[in-house]
C-alpha cells in the first residue's frame, strides 16, 4: 500500500469542507462518536453538516471559517491518504503555500455556478509554483446547475486557458456534488454523460509519488553518530535522509561544501547494512576515509555535484505581517544547513491573478516575489524545478525565530540570474 498527499484548494463557499467531510464519510473513515457529535449540531438543511468534520478550532466553528492548515487522514484498501486542508481566502496564500509544499496532487475546487474565478487562478498558480504535478479540477455543486454537461464543458474549456498559461499537464476534470455525494466515492447516477472515474477512484489510481530515485542523488547530514564505546571506538556514522536519488555501497562521493572525495563504505538502516538505499529513506552513511563532516554538509556522487553558491535567486512567499524590504538580514534554513543571509534586492512581485511581473520595492504578507540572496557561508543547492527537496528553504527572523518566508531556489549560477522585466510573463517551468 502506498501513500498520496493531496491538498484541497477552495473556500468554504465552494463546499471544500463538505467535500473533505464527504470523502471521509463515504470511505467509512468517520467514527460513530464523531458523527453523533455532528448530529447534535443544528444545520440549515436538517442533514448532517459534513463541513463540521474539518473545523477544528473554536474560532473556526464560531465564525464558520477555516483559519489554519489542518491535516486529515483516511485509508482505502489501495492507499493511505493525507489531506492537507488549506483555507481559501485571499489573505491566506501563506497557508496554501504551506499545504502545497508537501502535496503530490492538488484538488482545485470550483463552484459550478461561478466557474473559473480569480481564486481558481490564484490557487492553481500557487500549486504549480510549489511543484505539484497532478491536478484535479473538481467542479462542485453540479446539482445546482441541473447536472448540466454544457456548464461543465464550459468550465473545463475556461480552465484549459489557465492550465496553458501555467503549463500544467496532468489535469483531470470531474463533475461532482459533495453535498449529495455525486462522483465522490460512487459514480453518480445524475451525471450519466460523464464516463470518467469518481474522485476517489481517480485519487486511488494517480501515480503516488514522483520518482525521486531517478533524480540526481542528494543526501544531507543531520546528525553525526559517534558511540565512542569499547566495541565501537572509531565508529562515525552520518545520519540523514536521502533527499533524492539512490545511494549504493562503494559509490564514489564528494563531501560538500569542502569538496573532499571519498567513497561510501557502508549504508545502514536499522543497524543492518544494505547495498542500496533510495529517497526518502532515513539512513546512516559511513565513509571510507576519515574526513571532516558535520551537520548541514551534503554527500553527493562525484558525477552529480550540484552548485555550491553564496548567491542565489529565489522566489519567496512572504509570510510575516511586517512587509519585507531590500537590505534585511535573516537566517536561511536549507533543511539541516543554517546560514546567515542578506536580501539586498527584490526584483519584482508576481501578480497571482495575471501571472505577470510587477515592479515593487516591498513584499507584503502573502506576496510572492522574486529576490536575490547572499549567504554568509556557501550552500549546496539545486533549482527547485529540478529538485523539490534540495531546492527549498525557509527564511527565519533572527530575533523572533519565526518563519517569515518560504523560498524556492530559481538559480544558483549568477550567469542565469534574471533582470527585472516588469510586465513579462512571470511563470516559467
Amino acid at each position: 500500500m502506498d501513500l498520496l498527499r493531496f491538498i484541497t484548494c477552495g473556500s468554504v463557499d465552494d463546499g471544500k469542507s463538505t467535500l473533505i467531510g464527504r470523502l471521509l464519510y463515504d470511505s467509512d473513515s468517520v467514527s460513530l462518536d464523531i458523527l453523533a457529535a455532528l448530529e447534535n449540531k443544528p444545520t440549515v438543511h436538517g442533514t448532517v453538516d459534513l463541513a463540521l468534520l474539518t473545523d477544528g478550532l473554536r474560532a473556526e466553528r464560531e465564525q464558520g471559517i477555516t483559519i489554519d492548515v489542518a491535516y486529515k487522514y483516511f485509508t482505502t484498501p489501495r492507499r493511505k491518504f493525507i489531506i492537507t486542508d488549506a483555507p481559501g481566502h485571499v489573505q491566506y496564500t501563506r497557508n496554501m503555500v504551506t499545504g502545497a509544499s508537501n502535496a503530490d496532487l492538488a484538488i482545485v475546487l470550483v463552484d459550478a455556478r461561478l466557474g473559473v474565478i480569480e481564486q481558481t487562478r490564484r490557487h492553481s498558480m500557487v500549486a504549480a509554483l510549489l511543484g505539484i504535478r497532478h491536478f484535479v479540477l473538481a467542479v462542485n455543486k453540479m446539482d445546482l446547475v441541473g447536472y448540466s454537461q454544457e456548464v461543465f464543458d464550459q468550465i473545463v474549456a475556461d480552465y484549459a486557458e489557465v492550465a496553458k498559461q501555467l503549463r500544467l499537464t496532468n489535469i483531470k476534470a470531474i463533475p461532482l456534488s459533495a453535498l449529495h455525494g455525486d462522483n465522490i466515492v460512487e459514480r453518480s447516477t445524475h451525471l450519466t454523460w460523464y464516463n470518467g472515474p469518481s474522485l476517489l477512484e481517480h485519487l486511488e489510481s494517480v501515480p503516488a509519488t514522483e520518482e525521486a530515485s531517478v533524480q540526481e542523488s542528494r543526501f544531507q547530514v543531520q546528525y553525526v553518530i559517534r558511540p565512542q564505546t569499547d566495541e565501537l571506538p572509531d565508529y562515525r556514522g552520518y545520519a540523514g535522509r536521502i533527499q533524492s536519488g539512490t545511494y549504493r555501497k562503494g559509490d564514489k562521493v564528494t563531501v560538500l561544501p569542502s569538496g573532499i572525495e571519498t567513497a561510501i563504505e557502508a549504508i545502514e538502516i536499522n543497524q543492518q547494512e544494505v547495498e542500496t538505499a533510495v529517497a526518502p529513506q532515513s539512513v546512516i552513511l559511513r565513509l571510507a576515509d576519515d574526513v571532516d563532516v558535520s551537520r548541514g554538509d551534503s554527500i553527493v556522487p562525484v558525477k552529480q555535484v550540484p552548485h555550491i553558491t553564496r548567491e542565489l535567486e529565489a522566489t519567496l512567499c512572504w509570510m510575516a505581517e511586517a512587509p519585507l524590504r531590500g537590505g534585511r538580514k535573516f537566517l536561511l534554513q536549507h533543511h539541516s544547513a543554517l546560514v546567515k543571509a542578506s536580501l539586498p534586492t527584490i526584483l519584482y512581485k508576481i501578480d497571482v491573478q495575471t501571472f505577470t511581473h510587477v515592479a515593487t520595492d516591498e513584499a507584503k504578507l502573502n506576496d510572492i516575489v522574486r529576490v536575490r540572496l547572499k549567504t554568509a557561508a556557501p550552500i549546496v543547492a539545486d533549482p527547485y524545478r529540478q529538485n523539490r527537496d534540495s531546492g527549498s528553504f525557509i527564511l527565519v527572523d533572527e530575533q523572533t525565530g519565526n518563519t517569515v518566508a518560504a523560498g524556492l531556489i530559481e538559480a544558483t549560477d549568477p550567469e542565469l540570474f534574471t533582470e527585472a522585466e516588469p510586465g513579462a510573463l512571470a511563470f516559467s517551468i
Partner: protein
Amino acid sequence: MSTSHLDYLDRLEAEAIHIMREVAGQFERPALLFSGGKDSIVLTRLAEKAFRPGRFPFPLVHVDTGHNFPEVLAYRDELAARLGEKLIVRKVEDTIKQRGLRDATGKFPSRNPLQTYTLLDVIEEFEFDACIGGARRDEEKARAKERIFSVRDEFGQWDPKRQRPELWNVYNGKIQKGENVRVFPISNWTELDVWRYIQRENIALPSIYFGHERTCVVLPSGQLLGLSEHLQLDETDEIVQRQVRYRTVGDSTCTAAVESNASTIDDIIEDLLLAKVSERGATRLDDNISEAGMEDRKRNGYF
C-alpha cells in the same frame, strides 16, 4: 529498488526518524516524553532506528500521575533497562505537595489536568528545550492543526493563531530563552498505522492492551472503567467482570476499557478495522467535557 517500492509504513517511519534527528541536531537538551502507552513505545523504537549504534541524545521522561496501571510501570522499567537509556520519573503526587495544589476529587479523580504542572516543572528543572511526544493529528480536531515542531512560550502555552508555517520537511526549531518546542514525530500516523507498525516490527506491549478479564465499573455512558483504589464509588454503582482491553493508556481513573477478546496484535487490528468509535471517544472521559476540551488544555501547556 526504486522509490515506488517503499510501503507507506516505510515512508512514515523515514519521516519520523528524520524528525527525531532534527531534534538531535537542533537542540541542546531534548527529552522524550514517555507514558508507557503504545505511541511512546513506538517512539522508542524509532529512536533506536534513528540513533543506534549510538546512545539516544535524550533521556526518557515519565510524568507519573500515580494513577497507573501496574503492568505499565513494570513495562516502563524493563524497557528503560533493556535500552540502557536514562529514565527520569517525576510524580504528580510530589508536585501537588510542593505547590500546595488541590488533588483531583470526585468519583473519578483524574489527574490529567494536574500532569501539566509536573510536566512544566520537569521542563524547568532540566531546562529541556525540546520535548518529543507521541501525539497524533488523527486523535482530535485541535491536534489536526498542530505543527510537528510546536513552539510553546515559557508557560508551555500553545497559541494556534501564532503557529509558524511548516514547509516541506524543513523544521524550524529556533526559539528564544524560556520557550521550548514540543515535537511530534508520528503526527501523520493514525491509530491503525501505529498498530500495523507494532505488528510489522514485532514490538512487545504492556499486557493491558490485550484482552483480559477485569473487574470494571459501568459508567452511565455504558463505558467500562477498570476498578482501582482511586475511584470513589457509590453503593449503586454496577460492578461487573468483563473481558476487556485498553486502546490507550493514561490516567487509570479516566481511561476506559473496551470489551474485547483480542489476544494478539492481528486480533486488535481486526477489531480496529471493524471498530466504529474513535480512540479518544471510546476511552477518554475528559475530552468530552467541552467540545474545545483539548484545545483549552493545549493552550495551557498540555502536550
